[in-house]
């Protein structure tokens, strides 16, 4: 008879309930945020350094690169152990500030780092999780553009500091805006011009509607950015300083010859640093990117696999997107799907379509989303229910529960389209979503919209020129008094996400003696995490290496089966794959299971002939 012995079983079955539930409970119970504000690059750097100093075991800070404007592009790694150890564990990557005007996402990322580091200090279970997983955070991928929020005049931009020739005249950045009225903000100018494109909104004289010739609209206003025509080409501010939007600079659905997208995919220092970092960390299973692209407030459409190049996510991957979309909307307090879509050349699409990873994307905040959240809460209150998820401290949503018309959830540029597609389409309906937003700001942050004031423009002496409109960053950056609540909700989701990583485990090997010193060895490799060890897209792209089982023993003793066996994807939540061998005793045998995204498991067994 034979006896076998089990050594070094690393899998700890302590977490019998799904990991994401544990994580959410642990982290959300940590001290709530207060008084969050947006920070410039030097403050951001100082805070990150402070976290790294305070938590040397768990927080590791390195600059990935220097931006075009010579600012450090910080990488924060949360994980216990050496870099090599952290590189071999299941990992989540959080990317924020890749679009320069994403100050809110950047603030969330910073708060998330702080929260995770503090929780790890206070709770051994969280520290243990950071021993088994790695969390990478890039809090601000485009630090140059974010800095424009803190400068005077404040001018919103999403691009890098790379000089570009937006108007194809052979000159770069030669006609940027100017703060003509000296209010410290670059806003808009409306110029009285029958050849313009806008008419006043009859329901809200501060807002403009696009003139529609078919409706008989006669244009009244031309809308320009505040400034003069520096290069005297009769175009105003058509070639401002900067830049390439890093989140349009990746190869999937890349838009050529669009000045926001750069000279070619991954043309910029910052996008290249991000891409190279991502390639060097094949353990990253989940990526979450803050920016204009979204696949959480609305689950993206799928298509059957095999289309090359693909135009939508694979059918087999859709349920995971759907589930996490639900989790996200619940976390932020939305009670329905809104309209969300990706953009050409985004980082998140490269991650899914070309690198085969689970890639989520959303705006950390938008006024449209905020209004819907407020409505959802008002609805819940009215129904007498208390929404468990909306107990977090939030701004006062008063006065936003009277609107019953469904509104488009996208920016003002899409308003006209949404209305055109809608039923009725009377003059009153146009611009409804922007009016609603303006009303929200009037209540919560009235400084977001500046009244139109006549200004004697030096270039346009014969025309009425008024300066005013949306303040820079108003529509993309949450008012600071709402920031704590946003961070809480987003952290709730991010924390949940950390618990969704795949995780490989090796069940107790089954050894059956076949007689005469031969044994059948049966290995069962389980995925105790949530996500599969590879999405369908990960398998298709072959960028997620197959899980391999390697026996460490004299090859001649393996009479059936192979020394290295590659496994197909293993579903999460307990999915299992089995490998069988015929082994000749005696001698030890080490077993190593390595999953690209699900970590690894090791064990040593011994086949012994019973006397």
């Amino acid at each position, binding site marked *: 008879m034979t006896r076998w012995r089990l050594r070094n079983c690393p899998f700890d079955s302590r977490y019998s309930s799904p990991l994401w539930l544990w994580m959410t409970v642990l982290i959300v119970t940590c001290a709530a945020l207060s008084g969050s504000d947006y920070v410039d690059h030097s403050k951001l750097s100082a805070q990150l350094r402070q976290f790294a100093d305070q938590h040397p075991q768990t927080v590791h800070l390195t600059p990935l690169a220097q931006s075009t404007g010579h600012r450090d592009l910080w990488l924060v790694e949360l994980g216990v152990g050496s870099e090599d150890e952290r590189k071999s564990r299941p990992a989540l990557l959080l990317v924020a500030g890749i679009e320069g005007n994403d100050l809110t996402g950047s603030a969330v990322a910073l708060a998330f780092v702080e929260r995770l580091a503090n929780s790890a200090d206070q709770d051994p279970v969280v520290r243990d999780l950071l021993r088994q997983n790695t969390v990478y955070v890039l809090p601000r991928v485009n630090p140059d553009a974010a800095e424009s929020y803190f400068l005077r005049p404040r001018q919103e931009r999403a691009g890098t500091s790379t000089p570009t020739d937006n108007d194809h005249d052979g000159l770069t950045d030669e006609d940027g805006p100017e703060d003509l009225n000296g209010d410290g903000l670059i806003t808009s100018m409306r110029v009285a011009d029958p050849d313009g494109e806008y008419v006043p909104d009859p329901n809200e004289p501060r807002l403009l509607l696009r003139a529609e010739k078919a409706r008989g609209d006669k244009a009244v206003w031309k809308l320009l950015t505040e400034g003069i025509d520096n290069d005297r080409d009769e175009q105003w501010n058509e070639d401002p300083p900067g830049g390439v939007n890093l989140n349009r600079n990746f190869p999937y659905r890349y838009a050529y010859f669009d000045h926001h997208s750069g000279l*070619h995919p991954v043309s910029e220092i910052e996008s290249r640093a991000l891409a190279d970092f991502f390639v060097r960390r094949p353990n990253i299973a989940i990526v979450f990117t803050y920016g204009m692209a979204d696949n959480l407030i609305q689950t993206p459409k799928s298509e059957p696999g095999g289309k090359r190049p693909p135009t939508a996510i694979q059918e087999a991957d859709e349920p995971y997107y759907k589930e996490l979309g639900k989790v996200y909307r619940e976390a932020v307090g939305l009670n329905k799907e809104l309209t969300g879509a990706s953009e050409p050349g985004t980082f998140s699409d490269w991650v899914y*379509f070309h690198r085969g990873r689970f890639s989520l994307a959303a705006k950390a905040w938008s006024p449209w989303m905020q209004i819907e959240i407020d409505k959802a809460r008002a609805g819940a209150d009215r129904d007498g229910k208390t929404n468990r998820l909306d107990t977090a401290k939030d701004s006062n949503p008063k006065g936003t529960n009277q609107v019953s018309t469904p509104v488009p959830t996208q920016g003002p540029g899409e308003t006209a389209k949404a209305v055109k597609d809608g039923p009725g389409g009377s003059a009153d309906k146009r611009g409804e979503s922007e009016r609603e937003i303006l009303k929200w700001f009037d209540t919560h942050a009235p400084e977001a919209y500046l009244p139109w004031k006549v200004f004697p423009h030096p270039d346009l002496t014969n025309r009425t020129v008024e300066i005013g409109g949306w303040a820079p960053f108003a529509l993309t950056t949450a008012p600071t008094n709402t920031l704590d609540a946003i961070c809480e909700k987003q952290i709730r989701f991010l924390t949940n996400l950390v618990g969704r990583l795949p995780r490989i485990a090796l069940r107790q090997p089954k050894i059956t003696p076949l007689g005469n010193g031969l044994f059948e060895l049966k290995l069962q490799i389980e995925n105790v995490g949530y996500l599969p060890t590879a999405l369908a897209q990960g398998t298709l792209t072959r960028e997620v290496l197959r899980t391999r089982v390697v026996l460490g023993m004299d090859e001649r003793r393996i009479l059936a089966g192979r020394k290295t066996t590659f496994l197909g994807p293993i579903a999460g939540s307990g999915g299992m794959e089995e490998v069988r061998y015929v082994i000749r005793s005696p001698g030890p045998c080490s077993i190593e299971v390595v999953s690209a995204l699900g970590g690894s498991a090791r064990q040593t067994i011994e086949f012994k002939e019973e006397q």
Partner: protein
Amino acid sequence: MNRKRILSAILWTGWLGMISAQEAGRLPASGNPASHAYSALGLPATRKVDVEWNRFYDHAGLGTILEKLHRAFPDLTRLYSVGKSVEGRDLWCLEVTAFKVGNCQRKPGMYIDGNIHGNEVQAGEVVAYTAWYLCHQYRQLAKVTDLLDRCVLYLVPTINPDGRDRWFHEAQTPHSSRSGLRPVDDDGDGRADEDDVDDLDGDGSIVQMRIRDPNGRWKPHPQFPDYFMVRAAPDEKGEYTLLGWEGLDNDGDGEVNEDPAGGYDMNRNWAWDWQPNYIQHGAMEYPFSLPETRALSEFIVSHPNIAAAQSYHNAGGMILRGPGREGGIIQPQDESVMQFIASRGEKMLPYYRSMVIWKDLYTVWGGEVDWLYGARGVVPYTTELWTSRNANRRADGEGRDEEVTFLQHVLLEEGLVQWHAFDHPTYGKVELGGTKKNWGRTPPSFLLEEECHRNMAFTLYHAEQMPRLAIPEIRLEKLDERLYKAWITVANDRVIPTRLEQDVRNHISPPDTVTVTGDQLKVLASGIVIDRFASRVTPSKRRPERLEIDAIPGMDVIRTQFLLSGSGTMRVAVDSAHGGIVTAERVLP
């Protein structure tokens, strides 16, 4: 009798000795044959830099040739590194133009590279030969003088020096060492480049392995058993199983040669119609992710005067142009220019064919010439050097008879490794044999020089077709006191327009301009003459003194009109990114 014989032998020997002493005195004078040479057409008999063009040079060898040329022809060359390879080798560029004539930064430029695939070695010699020829023929041949006075050539003989040197200095097949040398985990086992081919018998060649096998499906060619293996007929028993290239299972995973050095394709890493690895094998992670392609793209972007390009590969005898994929963009006007220039090349290169990549060869995503055309608006070709049609002298195909005759009698069996036994650790008793790495894709020594010259000639023709601008006519008409109408004709008497349609449509380079200035004059209005007989003119919108033109088409003129007031000298300047600058002056009557 005996003594007589001995005596006569002595006498004979002595006489013979005297003869040889006299013969020694009558040997040709020692010296340099080069100083007794007469030029064969193609090159002057005396050369400042001696290079033999009947062998291949490694990266250092090509570098040395460029360095010698640069020292010998300092007014015609600049030598610099465009960037570094994965292993740190320089991408040497020899810039060739008449530096003392004109502004070399504004001359129409042609970018010429070779050897993007490490094993496609003779591309390097063709580019280096071009440099060598141009330097020696400047001021000897009017065509070369004119070309170097007017244009600038950027010559990069090898853009994959790592792959090249590996092919030179290690045992390889004709097809291996195509990749660069960034390690890639081809078999997905977590290790990179751990199981390459192996020179089992240490003869410097990687050849085929075969094993005798009563169930095998291969047999030696019945007529030429030493040269070819052929498949047995479906109803016939074979004799051998083929086991692939010479090699071991280095990593003990049960597979032989499954993770060789590198494992990608630098010609799939360019940022136009790029697709990832699973759609286009070898593309790597993103466009220009490799140091070589990155450096070259930056070099090309920073030289907006580049209007034409050539990228030498081997093999097959093809003049290839894009698009690389079905449905890829090529504007019809641009296609006709490219088709025409290639058709000239077909005539200059026997057995070469003009082809479109996706249609006539195979699909290529992210290829170099597609980027050059699509993203940069340049006229590029990929020439696949060498075809065995040239050895066999058969345009219709590759006849076995001719091939064997060539191998057996012309090459005296030099390219062959005869089948010989080897005891393989995994397979047991096998046989090794086949052709050496310098057979099949590269020409033999005596055809290499021809290959270099003819291909250079096509590329120089291509360079010559870059736009050449002139102001052939300025017609001045006095309309009133101090009011003039000037008709300025701008001509391009070459085939390539100043801006391809792809360029105009996508604003790749700035528009061409015609600028009129004068100290005592003012431009009141300007426009483009669209009908010279009916005097129909499209007026410009703004800045009349700086008239923008989309492009000056090939073999054509653009007529412009300027309405001027004032007097004195009128200065005209035509400025085109690809066509350079031409100027003229007239005094207003």
